[in-house]
């Protein structure tokens, strides 16, 4: 899907939105201060650093990891991450033999409390169409090559369960503390298009 519509100039889009907002405010249907809170929350306060903390905790605390895999919602809530579009969480673990990839083919469902809002590519037609059909090709586009005998599991978020990939902890990180480990964990690794790597 292209960023700019072919038939309507950008300024018309801006006018449409201004018209909508001004009327909704005048009718008392929306409160502008609430709009600001909504924007600030998802632009500045909620993002993939949350999920990275969850991953780093699971890597360093076996008990936490077990809780995360058996009741993801409760374990994620232990770190203070709850809410909209993450009320019912499932964590899927990458191993040397199994690699997980998440998608929402029908729209763009994504675990907001741990990853924030999804990137444009995740919501786009190319990803939504190909992730279920050619996961290896998709991973290759992100520079990820997996051995043929690794099982790729593609999770299509058709219901209200929201999926978070627990990536494998890379080798050579044994001496790193939880914060340093969290800094290695990218959003893309928690979607499943890449593995976590140690910068050389």
């Amino acid at each position, binding site marked *: 899907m292209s960023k700019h519509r072919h038939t309507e100039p950008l300024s018309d889009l*801006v006018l449409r939105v*201004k018209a909508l907002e001004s009327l909704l405010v005048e009718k008392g249907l929306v409160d502008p201060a609430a709009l600001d809170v909504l924007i600030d929350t998802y632009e500045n306060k909620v993002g993939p650093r949350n999920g990275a903390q969850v991953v780093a905790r699971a890597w360093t605390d076996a008990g936490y990891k077990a809780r995360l895999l058996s009741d993801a919602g409760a374990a994620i809530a232990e770190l203070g991450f709850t809410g909209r579009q993450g009320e019912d969480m499932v964590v899927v673990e990458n191993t040397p033999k199994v690699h997980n990839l998440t998608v929402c083919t029908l729209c763009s469902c994504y675990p907001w409390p741990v990853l924030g809002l999804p990137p444009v590519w995740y919501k786009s037609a190319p990803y939504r169409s*190909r992730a279920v059909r050619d996961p290896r090709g*998709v991973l290759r586009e*992100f520079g990820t090559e997996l051995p043929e005998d690794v099982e790729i599991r593609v999770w299509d978020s058709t219901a209200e369960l929201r999926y978070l990939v627990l990536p494998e902890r890379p080798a050579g990180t044994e001496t790193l503390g939880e914060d340093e480990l969290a800094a290695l964990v990218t959003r893309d690794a928690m979607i499943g298009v890449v593995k976590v790597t140690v910068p050389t």
Partner: protein
Amino acid sequence: MNSVHDLGGMDGLGPIVHEADEPVFHAEWERRVFALTLAMGFYGAWNIDSSRHARERTPAAEYLSSSYYEIWLSGLERLLDETGLLTRAEVDARIATLRAGAV
């Protein structure tokens, strides 16, 4: 409904374009559409399933050539009109006023 939002397995949609370090919102209007959609969701005139279906009912060719928040805008306009909270006529009138620089 068997429409184009049901993209799983469709071919020919091109390479995955990914922008490094992309911002959460690419324009101010996207911020507004995001917030208006959520705020109206909380208002309670419709549920999340109806709101998804409203986006799905964006005409097929428009859906495929729209950016993500354009589809959200399309869905929100549709729901507001269908519930009578804000009709397309009212919005069109306001657009005309804004365009004339009268506000």
